C-alpha cells in the first residue's frame, strides 16, 4: 500500500461498498481488532516501557519519573505528563519539527484516558506535601503508522505503567538516583483503562482502522473506559453524529473493550 498519498477516492468508495456488506479488505469483521502483540521492558533505562504492535502499527512507550514541586492546586498529589511524537521514521507523512496538532492531540487524549481513569494513585506519589512530589512522564513514539496509533499508544501507556518501578530517591540529598530502581512498583489502582476508537465510514462504524480506512473516516470517537465506566472521550473530525449513532458507538466500544482486554490481559498483571 502507498502510505505517502492519502487513500484515493476510488479505493475509498470500494472500502465503503465492502463495509455495506460487512466486509473489510483484510477480511476482518467491522468490530474486530487486528493481532495485538506486546513486549515489555524494551528500553532498560526507562522506569517502565512497552512495545505495542497492532497489525503493522507499532509504538514504543516509556515511563520516566522525577521529583518536582507539586502544582499549587494539588499540593499532595504527584504529576502526570504525557507526550507523543509522530516520528518521521514511522511514516512518510510525518515531518521533522515541533509537534503539530495530531501529535499534541494524541498526547492529550491519552493523558486524559490515563489520568481520569484514576489508574495512577497520585496521592501516593507525594513525597512532602506542598514541596516535593513525583512526576510521571509517559513518552510515546510512533515506530510504524498503519492506522489506529491512538489505541496502540494508550495500550502502550497502560502496559508500560504496569511494569514501572520507582527510582531510588535520596531524601537527605533530595536527589533521584537515576538508573537505580527500587523494587516498588508505581502505585496503581485495579482499573484497566483501555482506549478504543470507533470510526464512521459511510453508514458503518468500525474499530481499529488501517491507515487506508482511517483516511476515509468521516468522524472518530475515542473512548477511554475501564470495566464499563467511561472516563474520557474525544470526538475528532467534522461529521456530525445522530444521537442514535452515538449510542451505537457506545455499544460497539463496550463489546470491543472485552475483546481487547482478553488479548492484552496477561500483560496487565
Amino acid at each position, binding site marked *: 500500500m502507498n*502510505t505517502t498519498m492519502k487513500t484515493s477516492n476510488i479505493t475509498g468508495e470500494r472500502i465503503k461498498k465492502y463495509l455495506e456488506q460487512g466486509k473489510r479488505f483484510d477480511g476482518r469483521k467491522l468490530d474486530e481488532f487486528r493481532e495485538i502483540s506486546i513486549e515489555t521492558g*524494551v*528500553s*532498560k*533505562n*526507562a*522506569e517502565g*516501557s512497552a512495545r505495542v504492535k497492532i497489525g*503493522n502499527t*507499532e509504538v*514504543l512507550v*516509556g*515511563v*520516566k519519573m*522525577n521529583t518536582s514541586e507539586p502544582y499549587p492546586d494539588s499540593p499532595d498529589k504527584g504529576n502526570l505528563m504525557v*507526550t507523543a*511524537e509522530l*516520528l*518521521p*521514521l*514511522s*511514516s*512518510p507523512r510525518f515531518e*521533522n519539527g*515541533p509537534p503539530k496538532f495530531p501529535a499534541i492531540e494524541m498526547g492529550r487524549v491519552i493523558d486524559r484516558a490515563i489520568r481520569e481513569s484514576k489508574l495512577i494513585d497520585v496521592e501516593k506519589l507525594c513525597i512532602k506535601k506542598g514541596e516535593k512530589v513525583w512526576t510521571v*512522564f509517559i*513518552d510515546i*513514539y510512533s*515506530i*510504524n*503508522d*498503519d492506522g489506529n496509533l491512538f489505541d496502540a499508544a494508550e495500550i502502550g501507556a497502560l502496559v508500560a505503567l504496569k511494569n514501572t518501578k520507582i527510582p531510588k530517591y535520596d531524601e537527605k540529598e533530595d536527589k533521584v538516583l*537515576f*538508573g537505580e530502581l527500587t523494587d516498588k512498583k508505581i502505585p496503581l489502582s485495579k482499573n484497566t483503562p483501555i482506549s478504543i476508537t470507533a470510526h464512521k465510514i459511510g453508514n458503518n462504524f468500525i474499530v481499529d482502522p488501517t491507515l487506508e480506512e482511517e483516511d476515509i473516516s468521516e468522524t472518530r470517537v475515542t473512548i477511554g473506559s475501564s470495566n464499563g465506566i467511561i472516563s474520557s472521550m474525544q470526538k475528532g473530525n467534522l461529521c456530525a453524529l445522530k444521537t442514535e449513532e452515538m449510542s451505537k458507538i457506545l455499544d460497539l466500544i463496550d463489546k470491543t473493550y472485552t475483546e481487547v482486554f482478553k488479548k492484552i490481559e496477561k500483560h496487565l498483571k
Partner: protein
Amino acid sequence: MVKEIKRKSGRKADEMRPISAKVGIIPNADGSAMYKSGETIAIAAVYGPKKMHPQHSQNPAKGTLRCTYSMLSFSVTDRIRPGPNRRSTEISKIIEWALDPVVMLDNYPNMVVDVHIHMTQADAGTRCAGINAAAMALAHAGIPMKNMVSSIAAGKLDKTVVLDLDKYEDSDFEEGEGSTDIPMSFTDDGKLTHIQVDGYISKEQLKQAIEMAKKASGKIYEVQEKALKEIEK
C-alpha cells in the same frame, strides 16, 4: 610494555560488545534496520529518494543525503526533553558526513534521501550504532552505494588502548589518564569517513586505536551483510 587494564565488563582490550542486527523492521519505510551493541540499540529508517522540499535546498548537481539523529526521551537514565538539541544536531551532521561518501546520488538531482535514526536504548556508542543501522537501512532501501560503512569506537582507559567503550568506561572511568573515546567509521575497503576524539591520547596510541577499530569494523561489516541477506520479505 604497559600492563593491560582490567575492564569492569571483563572484556579484553580489543574485544567489542556483543552485536546483532536486523533489517526490515519498519514496513512503511523504503529501508530500515536495527543495530544492537551491548545495551545500545539504534533503529533507522530511510525514505526516498524523493523531491527535496523546500525548493531552495535542492541541489541540481546531485541528490542530497539528509540524516537526523535523536535519542528517545527514556533511552537514558536521566530523561531527555523531546526535540532536537545541540548534541543531536551535531551528531546528525557527523552521521551525514560518515555516510555521504559512499552513497551515489549523482543520478538524483534535486532529490533527497532522508535517514531517520533513533536510539531506543542508550549505553554509549550511540552514534556508531546509529551509523551502522543507517548504512544497512540505506542498502535495504536500494540506494546505490559504493561501499558499506561500519562504525565502532576505540578508546583509551588510563594508558591502555581499548575497543568500544561502554557507558561506565565512557562516563565514569577516572583512573590515571581517564578515558578517551574515539568513534570512527570505515568503508568496507578500509577508508575513514568519520573520526572524533574526546580525551587525552598520544599520536602513537591514536594510530594504534585506529588500527584496532579498523580491524573491528570488518567484524561489524560481516554482521551487517548477514542481516541484509536475511531480510524477511
